[in-house]
């Protein structure tokens, strides 16, 4: 009952955030200097032709009308037309790019989540010992490292010297990404390095917090073996905050994707976003940013539900006996 209430509340909030975000993105992009029609037609265009194009694109309508038209189309899957690519339907390229990025994000995810959590737990359990010093140092060092820096270092080692992986993540024409999975490795590792710092440090501190709690003392002094105490008593409680952190950082992961995709020339959503910005392709910018936001909001929602489900304090309502 409580759970359902929470679910509906969060769902409502998610929708609200998306609406608010879409407005913010739309207005932010629209108030920016530059005339779309002028951009399309180029500086040489006559005033009449610009005005005619504005008319046909509906650019002279009041802003809320334009917003509703845009948002309405979005809900129905119509992402609009690209300006730079002269009227190409955005959805015709967009979803393939999204698919690539999802695959990259997923690869990075399965790299960094287990490693960071395991290392974080190890550091937390061995707090103060050598293993902890090493893991903490690595975590600290990589925490605020830009993805392209870790990427460059990886490229230098694995592509320039060892020549194991390609420098650029290009998919040859006529092939799909499935035949070129090796292009995923270095970009995913670059992200892993950065996320490792953040996640492992969080995991370490939550593990230390749990290990110094009264109930771990109680379990130890009940005579439970240490390994059992760690895995059966500490782990679940120590994982809860990390799950939240991982979920909350999905947005950050997508921010990182832009950098990594640019570095490797990976054909994903991030590089699409950047090129949209560079070419001032407003409908494409809107589509990309809104989708990134959606990913973040949605993963926050999922995380929150998972947290509520795993935490008995939320799942089972308090009832005094």
């Amino acid at each position: 009952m409580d759970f359902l209430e929470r679910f509906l509340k969060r769902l409502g909030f998610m929708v609200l955030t998306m609406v608010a975000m879409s407005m913010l993105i739309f207005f932010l992009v629209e108030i920016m200097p530059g005339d779309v029609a002028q951009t399309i037609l180029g500086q040489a265009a006559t005033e009449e032709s610009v005005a005619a194009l504005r008319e046909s694109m509906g650019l002279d309508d009041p802003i809320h009308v334009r917003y509703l038209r845009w948002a309405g189309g979005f809900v129905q899957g119509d992402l609009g037309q690209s300006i730079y690519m002269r009227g190409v339907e955005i959805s015709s390229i967009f979803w393939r790019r999204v698919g690539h990025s999802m695959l990259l994000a997923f690869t990075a995810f399965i790299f960094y989540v287990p490693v960071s959590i395991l290392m974080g737990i190890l550091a937390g359990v061995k707090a103060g010992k050598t293993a902890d010093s090493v893991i903490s140092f690595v975590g600290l060092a990589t925490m605020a490292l830009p993805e392209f820096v870790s990427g460059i270092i990886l490229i230098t080692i694995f592509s320039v010297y060892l020549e194991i992986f390609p420098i650029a993540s290009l998919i040859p024409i006529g092939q799909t990404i499935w035949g070129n999975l090796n292009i995923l490795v270095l970009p995913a590792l670059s992200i892993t390095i950065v996320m490792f710092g953040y996640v492992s440090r969080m995991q370490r501190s939550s593990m230390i917090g749990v290990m110094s709690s009264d109930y771990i003392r109680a379990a130890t002094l009940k005579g439970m073996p240490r390994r059992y105490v760690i895995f059966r008593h500490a782990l679940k409680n120590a994982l809860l905050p990390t799950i939240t952190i991982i979920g909350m950082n999905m947005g950050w992961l997508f921010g990182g994707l832009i950098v990594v995709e640019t570095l490797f020339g990976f054909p994903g959503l991030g590089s699409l976003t950047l090129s949209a910005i560079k070419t001032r392709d407003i409908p494409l910018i809107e589509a990309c940013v809104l989708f990134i936001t959606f990913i973040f909001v949605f993963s926050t929602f999922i995380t929150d539900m998972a947290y509520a489900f795993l935490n008995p304090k939320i799942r089972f309502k308090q009832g005094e006996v």
Partner: protein
Amino acid sequence: MKNKQKTMPVLEINNLNVEYKTLTDRIVAVKDISLKVGRKEALGIIGESGCGKSTLTYAIVDYLPKNGSRSGEVIFMGENLLEKSPKEMESYRGNRIAMVYQNPYSSLNPSLTIGFQLEEVTMFHQKFSRSKAREAAIETLTDLYMGDAAGIIERYPHQISGGMQQRVCIAMALLCKPDLMILDEPTTALDVTTEAVILDIIGELKEKYNMSLIYISHDIGVVNKVADRIAVMYRGEVVETSSQEAIFNDPLHPYTRALISCMPRAGVVKETVRLNTIPGYVTRRSAAETGCPFVPRCDKKRPGCEDRYGFTERKSGHFTACDRAYAEDVPERPVQIKKKEVKLPDNGPAPEHRTILQLDKIYRYFGPPGKRIRAVDGVDLTLDRNSVLGVVGESGCGKSTIGNTVGGLLRPTSGKIIFDGTDISVSWRKRSPETLREIQLIFQNPGRSLNPSFTLEAIIGRPMKKLLGINSGEERKKRIVDILKKVDLGEEYLYRRPRQLSGGEMQRAAVARAFSISPNLLICDEPTSALDASVQASVLNLLVDLQKESGASYIFISHDLNVINYLSDMIMVMYLGRICEYGEKHEVVGSPCHPYTEALLSAVPDVDPSIKKEAIRLEGSPPDPTIKIKGCPFAGRCHRKVGTVCDTTPPPKVDFSETHFSYCHIKPAKIEKKVMQAGEVMRTQEI
């Protein structure tokens, strides 16, 4: 062999030392302790915070922090535990030596069911199957009077009340029928009526399970209820051990003597007794220090005490480390110094000016409608000038809310507060500077009520500037020094910051701040609860002195009936936001008329072990404060419930004298007949 087992002590500690290494120093937490606990014996250990009580227990079960080290011998059933490997210790912990801790809520794993946490104990130690372990768990819970044991093991810890959680923890310790159970302040976090029940149960189970106990507490009264023998610890050392009667009636160590005479207890009231105080405070002991640990605070010390020290048997079974207790070169500090003051006849202010504060149907709710918590649920009261009203009740009864509402931190949801003829039922922002000056608050935790960033000069000077309008720094400084002297802090404290002070000094500084602007009404919200016993007395004395001198009125809020009894003129007993009983001190304590007051009085632990009271067992816990109660809030737990009328109709106000009344359905005649045993005890003890 069998015979030997019987006479052999369960636990024998010989010359145990525990040291901690810090960045700069080596701290001695436990020094040269030798103790014995016999079979079925209950040893109580008392001491103030930081005296090494908990460290001692962790040294026994090998659970010291990484920077701690121990030496000596801990012989448990003939085996030295200090020689056991960590793996071997596992088979002792929870199996033969079990522990119970102060905070039951945090001692239970929030993400595992109670059943799981109970079952694993026997599954590990006794190799029980899960179903057999479950049976054992249910059986033990039933031993602890948990009604629906089978239902409780399906639940998570947060779903049951604090008292129930502690029973679960005790059950967990009992599962393997241990030889020794160590209880570390197990009732400190609980309300006094819950505490009484738990203590009762512990006593019973000790017999039933044939166990030895070590019971640790800062409160002699609590230890008295369970212990056969008592050890007094001070700064890491045991300074005295004996039977509980001898410790109270014939204490030999100056520390024990000082400690006992500084505690408020039954029959000790401000009119007749001034509490003893111990100068200074407990400090950490560095490894280099030798001699008696009490030397810096002892008034009987003589040359040589700093380095000579030895723990010897002075009388049969009575060990102590000092022979100066009856020293005649220093007179015993007087306990009784005052005659009862004659009450002034009513020729003072006219009756309408006699009242300083009046509360008229005060309600204070928290939270949104539907989940509304009724913290204060219709309270009327009047407070006379120059008098002290003690407000007592268990956690969640609304006593602090009353204080904060009068103090202006909270606005009443409805009702009127009349202070000195003006309506002040508004929050602080709408009060006049004059009212703000007249009403001052003293909080529970001085470490939190003094801003750590400022010096005492700034802390005490600010209200003077703000509310008295003294803008001259010189003038302020002069006054601050004056008030600091009054609270026994010298001029040298002027530029100290709170973190450079001990708890007692901080609270005295807080008192100085409150009195620096001559208030007429002082609200003290548990002002001594965070302090050690030896420090509490000096703050209580100070509050009594300043009240006499200034003629201010107090609202003194506390959960501790002994403190309330010591300090108050009038007492108000609260339960779940409502008044149960109100009257003059001797009326409420002497002849309580409300069943809840009666239960409360019966549950109060006593310093004097000769006072044996039958604690009234209150079942269950206070009802959910979000539910609107039609009848009497206490009805669900009342041991003298009249009938369904208690659940359906609000209890009527019953007057017993001009000042004494209660809200109860019991017919006044019946109350008169059954003059309370607990009250009798309190009265007969009056000196």
